[in-house]
């Protein structure tokens, strides 16, 4: 009995450390889409976290920590993606990655740089 209740308490307080997946939707807002530079920034940020990070597009699911994987999404401006994080720091990872999208990967809307 005691063991059981401790178990449920554990689950409640650290629900996320055991592999629950949390996700958020992001939109690729840079005019040039998710090209080499933002893909690099994204993969770098994803690798900072312990959690597994995946990006899901319509028909594809890729490893967010791999620039090659991210580039295979060929996500143009306006594309909606779901970022999924699974692991102990999933919440922080999602926040950090979401903020990259929110900031347009520090690109100006009209930037010609790729």
């Amino acid at each position, binding site marked *: 009995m005691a063991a059981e209740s401790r178990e449920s308490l554990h689950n409640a307080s650290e629900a996320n450390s055991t592999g629950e997946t949390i996700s958020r939707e992001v939109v690729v807002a840079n005019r040039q889409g998710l090209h080499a530079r933002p893909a*690099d920034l994204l993969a770098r940020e994803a690798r900072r976290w312990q959690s597994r990070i995946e990006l899901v597009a319509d028909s594809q699911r890729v490893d967010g920590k791999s620039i090659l994987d991210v580039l295979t999404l060929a996500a143009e401006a306006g594309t909606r993606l779901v970022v999924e994080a699974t692991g102990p720091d999933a919440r922080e990872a999602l926040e950090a990655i979401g903020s990259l999208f929110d900031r347009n990967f520090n690109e100006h809307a009209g930037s010609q740089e790729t």
Partner: protein
Amino acid sequence: MKFSDFVATEAIRSHVDADTKEGVIREMARALVDAGKIGTADEESIIKAIMKREDLGSTGIGRGVAVPHTKHPGVNRLVGTVAVSSEGINFESLDGEPVQLFFLLVSPPDRPGDHLRALESISRQLRDESFCKLLKSAKAPMDIQHLLEEADGHGVVS
């Protein structure tokens, strides 16, 4: 997008002479000029634009691969070529490894989608380690061409 949609086969180089970042970019741009894909008058400004892009962050994306690229009004469709350096070149790549395999891309300024789809094709195929290895060990431009054709044939239709 298939490799054959943007790789100028006559501009493929299986053994670059250059041993620097700028050198290999120059050699590949010259190959595109010689193949008639970019104009002589645009050569220098294309090289400059590619180098300027490299200054923002290396396009050496890891696994010994780099994708130097730029947009340039001198082309009206995406053109590109492939080169291999057997020794490898310091490209300040993201993983710090020397680069052996180069895909150079020049796209028209108003076609970001084509550029993305070319990057997609390249990165999709390069996730296959043996494909990378085979390309890096190509003995002649023809070997590279055949490998790209094979990848096109088996690739995911997009």
